[in-house]
């Protein structure tokens, strides 16, 4: 059935993916200057990556980083100027925290410079957890970049901002969960550890995954060493352990965007999907391995997940009526190894899936593959298109292309910007410590329920005839 063979071939070495416009991924050679792209209804000027390499500073044994955040989302009339680049450069410290490494969503967590990354759900700021256990917060509208340090903040496995809040940042640490309250108006660069709330429960460590409810009231946390998953009322600092027999720990949590379900995977070949009304769960045994990664569609009705040891993406569909849930997961894409013929030799792409990310509009899916298969081409991020027509809500998966970085760079972590108005913005953290933002300009096929800036977006011009005969997966066919 469907395979990577339908994809356009990866770019030759030395090219980096810059953005998507008019259903095409645009690339440029390193150091090239400016692109002018003119489409039917959009007009962008894209400045390619600016690289700012800085010396490292050494503080008391830690290799601290010096970095720069240059970003502006300037909108002037019909022209969008996007220039964003952030460069971190570090000495790598090899730190073996096997447990977290095993279950983290980040590829090669121990030696990854950026250990966790989180966009703020409502604004353009983001937080980055670094190898030296510090967290930096970058805000394009502010000159200060607060650095968060706490004596309990060790081996950060995950970060997430509290929804419907300007300041709350939850950090999954080795021994506890820290919830930082960083005043967005404060000019302080080193918020004191008094700004952090410590949430801990005996036996609940190391914490490898956290997830806020979309309503911002509850936080769930998981530890592979604890069979119970904790539901925290963060402000009141009390927690409810939810325990089920089997699985032996909880490794990954993901709250669906509509707040109705929570995915909880275990270290064994079993994962659970909790419904959040009465907190009951469905058991989903896998055949081969544990659920490695999962992501929800924006309306919370569909769950895509990958299983360790398999190169397949599965889908589960949930309905509002209880008792009529899915019976089995269906395979929607097969990402097994495929060879592309390029000018300078064959390129092999494909393999086990590390992480999945679905953009908040539900139209782009990014997949991070485990690096084993990649020969010399860093082509591990694979983007496929998801089209969803308004009239007939069927699930379609169409190929889009590969996002590539510089030669020698491997992608380690991917995440979409939660509310990028002009389409989707994919953030990729690379092995070199670089973070790049790849914009995908498109018009949403869905009118968003709640426009963040008021009026809904204009109706899209549907231009995907080229792909009609190329779809990887459609619900109609299966």
């Amino acid at each position, binding site marked *: 059935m469907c395979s990577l063979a339908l994809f356009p071939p990866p770019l030759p070495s030395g090219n980096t993916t810059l953005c998507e416009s008019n259903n095409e991924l645009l690339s440029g050679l390193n150091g090239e200057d400016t692109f002018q792209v003119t489409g039917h209804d959009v007009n962008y000027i894209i400045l390619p990556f600016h690289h700012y390499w800085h010396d490292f500073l050494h503080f008391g044994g830690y290799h601290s980083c010096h970095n720069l955040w240059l970003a502006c989302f300037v909108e002037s009339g019909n022209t969008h100027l996007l220039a964003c680049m952030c460069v971190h450069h570090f000495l790598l410290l090899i730190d073996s925290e096997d447990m977290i490494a095993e279950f983290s969503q980040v590829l090669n967590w121990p030696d990854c410079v950026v250990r966790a990354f989180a966009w703020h759900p409502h604004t353009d700021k983001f937080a980055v957890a670094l190898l030296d256990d510090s967290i930096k917060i970058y805000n394009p509208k502010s000159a200060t970049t607060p650095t968060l340090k706490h004596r309990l903040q060790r081996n950060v496995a995950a970060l997430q901002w509290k929804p419907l809040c*300007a300041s709350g940042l939850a950090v999954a640490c080795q021994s506890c969960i820290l919830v930082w309250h960083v005043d*967005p108006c404060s000019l302080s660069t080193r918020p004191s550890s008094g700004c952090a709330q410590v949430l801990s429960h005996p036996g609940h460590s190391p914490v490898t995954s956290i997830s806020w409810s979309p309503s911002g*009231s509850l936080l769930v946390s998981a530890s592979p060493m604890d069979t119970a998953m904790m539901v925290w009322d963060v402000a*009141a*600092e*009390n927690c409810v352990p939810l325990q089920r027999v089997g699985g032996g720990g909880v490794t990954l949590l993901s709250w669906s965007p509509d707040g109705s379900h929570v995915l909880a995977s275990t270290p064994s070949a079993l994962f659970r999907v909790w419904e959040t009304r009465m*907190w009951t769960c469905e058991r989903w045994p896998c055949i081969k391995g544990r659920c490695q990664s999962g992501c929800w569609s924006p309306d919370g009705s569909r769950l895509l997940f990958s299983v360790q040891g398999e190169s397949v993406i599965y889908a589960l569909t949930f309905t509002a009526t209880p008792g009529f849930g899915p019976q089995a997961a269906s395979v929607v894409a097969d990402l097994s190894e495929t060879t592309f013929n390029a000018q300078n030799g064959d390129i092999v792409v494909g393999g086990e899936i590390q992480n999945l990310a679905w953009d908040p509009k539900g139209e782009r899916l990014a997949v991070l593959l485990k690096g084993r298969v990649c020969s010399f081409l860093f082509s591990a991020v694979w983007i496929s298109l998801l089209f969803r027509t308004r009239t007939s809500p069927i699930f379609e998966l169409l190929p889009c292309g590969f996002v590539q970085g510089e030669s020698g760079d491997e992608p380690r972590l991917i995440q979409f910007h939660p509310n990028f108005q002009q389409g989707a913005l994919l953030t990729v953290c690379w092995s070199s410590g670089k973070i790049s933002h790849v914009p995908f300009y498109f018009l949403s096929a869905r009118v968003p329920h709640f426009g963040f800036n008021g009026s809904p977006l204009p109706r899209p011009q549907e231009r995907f005839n080229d792909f009609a005969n190329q779809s990887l997966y459609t619900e109609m066919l299966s």
Partner: protein
Amino acid sequence: SHANFQCNKVICWRATASIAWAVLLLPPTTAVFVILSRFSIFHPMQWLSECLSLLLSINAIFSLILLSGVIIMVGFLNLEYYTVIPTIACSKIALLGQLLHPRQFFSSLVHGVMGMVVGWCCAVTVGGRYETLGYSCQQSDDGGPSQMCLNEYHLFLLLSGVFMGFSHSLLGVIHNMNYVPFHTIQQYKYLRFKESIPLVVKCSASQALYSMRNFIVLYFFLGHIPKGWICQTLQLEVDRSAHALDTVGGLLDLSLLYHTWISGTFLLFTWYTTLQLFRIFVTEVSFPVQSSFTDNAHQCLAKVIAEKQPIILKFLALQDLALLSQHSPLRRAEVFSLSQPGGHPHNWIAVSKECLSLLSDLTQRLVTYHDTVATNGRAKSLSTGSERKNSCLGVCPLHHRRRLLQPLTAPFTPDLDSPFSSPALRRLTAPVEQCSPWHGTVQSPHIARRGHKLWSTSAGEQQIESTAPLAPRMTSFFVFNVQLPEASSQALFADSQAHIWALEGLSYLVQASFTEDQFGVVQTTLPSILSSMLVLQEAVDRHFKLPHASSKPVRCSSTMGDCSYKTLRFALRAALKTALYRITTTFGEHLNAVQLSSEHRKKLQHFLEYKE
């Protein structure tokens, strides 16, 4: 009559169900107790067969009946003494007052008696040397006539039961064990109970250990008093050949300690289970769908939410509102609907009015408290510091006001008419009576304060007159009367769970109205919702700037007494911010079209820019 007063049909039914389950759980618990108490590793077959025969004996059945009676009594006391708004003692003297209150004293006494009954059942079940109070013994070596002697082991178990029951009751006051907390998340009753069993076991085992330690110390020093008294009244002799238990050697009997501990654990486990079941049953949300045409129209949400009596129903209704506004589009549609003849949004008006009055009530309480604290420096010299002390707030929190309506939900508020209450106690609680009960109509803070001040000065004078000759007593009183830090802040937010639900309910409904409200019923109230939230936000921010208000309480270790009320003010602050963000995120720039004062608009702009 008390029970009728407080006990709504729904609540009574739920309490009965919880007691029934507790009684049903008794046989398996007893079986486990029997197995553990007769534990012998060397004769496993004999051990098990003994246990089996014991469980089927008449004795065991009689014990079970007695224990069921105890459980029913405990369940009844739970129902009688429970509260959804914790009583927070603001000073040590207030806590002492709670402990010595006749109503509380009665409860402790009953618990003591029931503890003795359980102790007797345990002694009979464990059997062996514990079985009877008296046994025939030969006092003299020369084989004289046998007499009845006191079996001190039996007495020890009985007294430990009394002690455990009594200390359970007293600790219940200190840890607010009668406070019924509402669960963070909704769960089925069975699952909730199952998940709480490990905690109950842990708590009862550790508490039994602590109580046993205290009891041993007490028995070591005072054990001869009950022993002598029993011997005298029952004409029993003390067996001189047996070891006395109020000695170091007698108390270092490991088997005795084990049996005392396991009996205490059994006692506390059954009682905690009853309490836990009661909490789970009584906080369950299953509200009738609102509809004005059914026979039980008095049970529909819009009606119940506006009622003041009993307070737990109001809490349940508010919780239900918060849930329906979040989860149920169908029931939201009912809230937004118009009445059929007339076209009035009665449901929305009732719901929003009640929520807004709750919020403004809290705002005023905070403002008044803040004013009292601010003027305290001046007022203090005038009225000998009594003003600050009374009820530890300048205002009347709900649990005090409630006394007017519902004398029984506040078991530990000192009873002013009792002979036990000192003038100091009377002074602590008296102003409360003047405050308006919680009520839809809002009293202006100025009026409330004026009334309060009028009282406090006059009472202060009386106080000075009456206590003038008792100077030493006064000094000791002031030592005790030192305010517990942050207690006043806790007391101020004691009922804030209601406000949190009101905020959640309102904000979710407003959010849903963006797409679901066909007739625009919410639009009319949006300005008042926003402004009351912003005013509350200001008052809360101001309150958190006071000393002690933002200091975190000590994390309570896992006890049966839920201490989530200690952090309610933080939860309220977070819920308020989230509620405002929920509205601003949904409406975005459209909020500029809402009629608001310029000050509020400025604050709202901060929220729109995510700068709060």
